[in-house]
């Protein structure tokens, strides 16, 4: 019966949380307190862990909460329930996009949507970067972070211009290595 509740709660979350993974947090919080799956402190820890692991944040959080509510199988149920609404919606939207691919309305829409998405991503980076720059425990951390950022942006831009085709994973791994060496 527990699995049934896990399924229902995360299906709801997947259906009503519109936007990025962070949009799922209020829904998951509500579900957790309604079903008494975790304490508030555990919930905060779950959010932190979900953010520190690779993969989409929303899926990580769902699996984490599902796991603590119903073990390995609970985590799997939570994952499937969260992804089902997205699967159906994405399928329908893609079919519609293909159908009206060359329609005028769609062209006009994406003319405005593309710069909007670019602005959206810029608005995701800035707070992320500022937290890293200023939430350091001691001052040198900030400088190291700024230098690493500048160097990596430089490499990224050169990568584009010179067509080096460096894999993005390499940049991320470099970041982790530099962090491990110099961010303590």
């Amino acid at each position, binding site marked *: 019966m527990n699995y049934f509740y896990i399924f229902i709660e995360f299906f709801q979350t997947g259906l009503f949380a519109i936007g990025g993974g962070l949009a799922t947090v209020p829904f998951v919080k509500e579900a957790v307190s309604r079903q008494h799956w975790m304490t508030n402190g555990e919930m905060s820890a779950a959010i932190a862990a979900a953010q520190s692991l690779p993969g989409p944040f929303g899926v990580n959080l769902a699996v984490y909460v599902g796991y603590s509510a119903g073990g390995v199988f609970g985590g799997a149920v939570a994952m499937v329930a969260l992804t089902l609404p997205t699967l159906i919606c994405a399928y329908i*939207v893609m079919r519609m996009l293909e159908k009206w691919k060359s329609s005028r309305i769609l062209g*006009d829409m994406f003319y*405005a949507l593309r710069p909007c998405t*670019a602005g959206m991503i*810029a608005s995701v980076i800035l707070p992320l970067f500022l937290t890293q720059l200023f939430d350091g425990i001691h001052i040198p951390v900030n400088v190291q972070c700024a230098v690493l950022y500048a160097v990596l942006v430089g490499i990224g831009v050169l990568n584009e211009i010179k067509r080096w085709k460096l894999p993005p994973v390499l940049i991320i791994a470099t*970041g982790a290595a530099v962090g491990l060496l110099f961010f303590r």
Partner: protein
Amino acid sequence: MRQISINKNLQLFSTFAKMSAVTFGGGYAMMPLCERELVEKRHWCEQEEIADFYAVGQTTPGVVALTVAGLVGTRVNGFIGACAAIFGMSFPSLVLVTLIGALLTQNLDNPFIAAALGGTGTAVCALLTVTVFKLARGCVVDMTTLVIFSAAFAVLMLGMPPVWVVATAAFFGVLYGRKTNNIFAKLSRLRDKRK
């Protein structure tokens, strides 16, 4: 024929699983990898379409990364393709969270883990910055798009929910196109048609 479609599903699963397993920082952090894997390696979609998919992801239910996977999967191999892509995107999460989720929770204040995560976060910021420049170069083509870009950035920083921002932009695009017989939208449409 059947062989080909099974191969495609495997490709979808493995491509998205790989992207998911190596990206720290959620759906947006995956964008540079999307460009590399989906556009350059697999040729499943065009550079500009990635931005479109993310815009769709902001306005439809569920996590953005999953929506992008579902859209690409549908294009490559229909409904089964969407299942393969979405399952690929979420499978590494299932494994990793189940295996080390609890362990990580107890060790989040470990200085080594915190330092490595800090460096990763900075690298993700740098990658995304380059992506924004790349995106903007393709789509900020005139004064109107520059205004849309800055306005979207500003209202999102002020805390407006993304779904409303995207919906407003789409609505504005349609109205504006109607009124002005938008030449840039027409051009990009022609380009899409030619492909």
